[in-house]
């Protein structure tokens, strides 16, 4: 089983932007350990010279002219926002 300490668990939670209380960190670290231990098996596979998969179905991505095809619907875009004001999404103060 991979050992994941609580500091690592806290760092991952912070990178994922998920608030985790300090007292929940040991259990989280243990779960990570179990999952990463399971994933660890991949280390035994010989992948020498194997290309990492980019697309499961070989296909050429379609191209189109670089032009505006949609837009002009600010109200529609904002209709589900928790807080929208004067045609904008509103968030807490970002810059002091």
């Amino acid at each position, binding site marked *: 089983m991979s050992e994941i300490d609580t500091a690592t*668990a806290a760092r*991952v*939670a*912070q*990178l*994922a*932007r*998920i*608030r*985790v209380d300090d007292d929940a960190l040991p259990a*989280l670290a243990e*779960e*990570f350990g*179990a*999952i*990463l231990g*399971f*994933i*660890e*098996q*991949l*280390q035994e*596979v010989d*992948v020498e010279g*194997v*290309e*990492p*998969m*980019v*697309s*499961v*179905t070989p*296909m050429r*991505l*379609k191209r*189109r002219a670089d032009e505006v095809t949609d837009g002009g619907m600010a109200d*529609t*875009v904002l*209709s*589900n*926002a*928790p*807080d929208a004001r004067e045609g904008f*999404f509103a*968030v*807490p*103060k*970002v810059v002091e």
Partner: protein
Amino acid sequence: MSELPKLTIAAARDALRAGEVTSAELTEACLSAIDGADALGAFVHKTPDRAREMAAAADERLKAGDAPDLCGIPLGIKDLFCTKGVASQAASRILEGFSPEYESTVTTQLFAAGAVMLGKLNMDEFAMGSSNETSTYGNAVNPWRRGNDTAQLTPGGSSGGSAAAVAADLCLGATGTDTGGSIRQPAAFTGITGLKPTYGRCSRWGIIAFASSLDQAGPMAKDVRDAAILLSAMAGHDPKDSTSADLPVPDFESMLTGDVRGKTIGIPREYRMDGMPDEIESLWAEGRKMLEDAGATIVDISLPHTKYALPTYYVIAPAEASSNLARYDGVRYGHRAKLAQGDGIVDMYEKTRAEGFGPEVQRRVMVGTYVLSAGFYDAYYNRARKVRTLIKKDFEDVFEQGVDAILTPATPSAAFGLGEMAEADPVQMYLNDIFTVTVNLAGLPGISVPTGQDRTGLPLGLQLIGKPWEEAELLNTAYALERASGFVAKPEKWW
């Protein structure tokens, strides 16, 4: 209790066209079946008014003689599909109150064909789960029980609501999505037919994303013919999904002959797991015999990287999920946490996501974040992508050797009890997908067909895996299996 909701899509279509029944009657019968089935937790947003309007419009089309196969057919839609003006929240608290301003491509196509939407169906949160127990709406419940035992069983997941609704005859068919087995495992647990098409066959546009390189929509139906009818309507090229394939969509139903003479069916030895229940083992042997009796040649094959499929999946799927779910930030839609005085924008993100995501989703987002983080990207993510290449090559090799389809069990067990896995570590739950997940990693079509029951009477399913884009042939082989097994059992109504 009306018998109408028990009709197959094919039978209802023929009755509608012959004027023996109207879509309004069919729809009304389904709506009342749904109202009587709240104990199943299948329908989580009911849309009776919308359904009645759509049924009336379908009846007009039928009268005018302009009736595609699905015209007037009442369906349930998995909550993962965005439906315009109707709550679509991926069974997550973080999308509470979200009402899309657009319609997914798959539902657009179904509704253009005249299908009637009865409502939205329960599922695991963001399709992450194998038991429908991670849903913010609460559990969906399997209509099947172990004999006279009243213990509630899981309908499987993530498309648990879709499976329960079809098995309990609340609707004629349903949409599902499958990232690691989320159509096929619940179909097997509830005695219905579920098809995951080739990656790229159905547009992903407007389907709330989990792991974009694996996600694929597909039909959940009462039999193989209905799955074929639904797939023809759901599939097709969509310029709004760059991974959707620009290939013609056959009339899958017309290609069902049940003739599998001369076909070669592979039996992969790596799918024989230690500790596999005898009943699964014998179900598999019976399926092999049925196809052999129908004139197919059975060969033993090897898919050597099978054992690495689950660990590969549990790197790639969480990695893609952590990226896809970054959009839930409390700014543009859905839930935003109540903030304390002085909280900044990062507090808003962190509190919103802690409140809005359930434990399994949080776990996967964090695992995904970890495997993509600096220093681990190569060791985990890139390595998993290389192993995925090898898993796909395993399949290419056997298809090249002349194998037309592969027969495996759909699940390692029958449906288990709700709450039974509560104490198990997450990896135990992941093992549910052991036979299905390879198919997503390789982008192939796979179908689960009910072919037997365990000693307590619970349904069991077999999986057939086909070549890319050859759903027609796959459906036909499934049809042969369905006819040979003669599976007709239905759950006894207790709800």
